[in-house]
């Protein structure tokens, strides 16, 4: 089963994101890494000038 039902004691925001293997951690890694693309392109623009 890829997606399990929520099993923890108390439902919470992070508990809800934790819906089976890796869902929560992939989400957190994504939100951390995505803005780095923006930093990359803004730096690239600066170098081009």
């Amino acid at each position, binding site marked *: 089963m890829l997606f399990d039902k929520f099993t923890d*004691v108390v439902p919470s925001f992070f508990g809800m994101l934790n819906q089976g293997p890796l869902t929560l951690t992939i989400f957190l890694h994504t939100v*951390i890494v995505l803005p*780095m693309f923006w930093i*990359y392109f803004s730096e690239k623009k600066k170098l081009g000038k």
Partner: protein
Amino acid sequence: MAKENLSVWTSISFWRRSAAWVTGFATILLIWLTFDTMGQISMGTDADLQKGITKRVPAPTVINYHIDYKMSEKRGHEVPVIGKKEPFFGKEWSPKEAAALLHLGKLGSQAKNCMNCHTLLGNGAYYAPDLTKAWLDPMWGATMQGMTGKSTKEEAMAEFLMHPEKYPTHARMMPNLKITAEEAKGLVAFLKHMSSIDTNGFPRGFSKTVDQFKAGGTNAH
């Protein structure tokens, strides 16, 4: 610098900005997670216990209840099960008394430096058994009640804590830490309370094969 730096990948400012972003955001996430967890691990109340509301860390009055540690189909691991009321040192403890006793026990656990031989919730030193579920250890029943001549588990535990050198089970003995009778009661309450904490199934299969072990540790017929 002699030549112009043309790649973003070797530019210090790219890495500096990225480091600042990642560090800052990870810190914010950690603080947010901490608030969420604080809510979940703060102690429950006596009313929660009476209504049967499950808390990860129950109220000190959990010492008035029978505690078990059973496999949960839903959670996929063992969880503490709080059962019917049972006397603790021969009486029922009011919320105030129970809180004071737990306070004494927790202070005692630090003052006697338990953590530098034992592990509590798996953290500490590895010279003596883990105490997470010590209240539920089958050794207290038959063996220790027998050795100390006490009629209840909590009295046997308190007696052992006061005079551990009198009841050795191994060449490696617990030293006498000058624990008073009152402190021993507190420590037993602390251990009973700790065994009621929902540790996500740690330790797994607690003392499951102890009977086999006592019989010689084999399944052969």
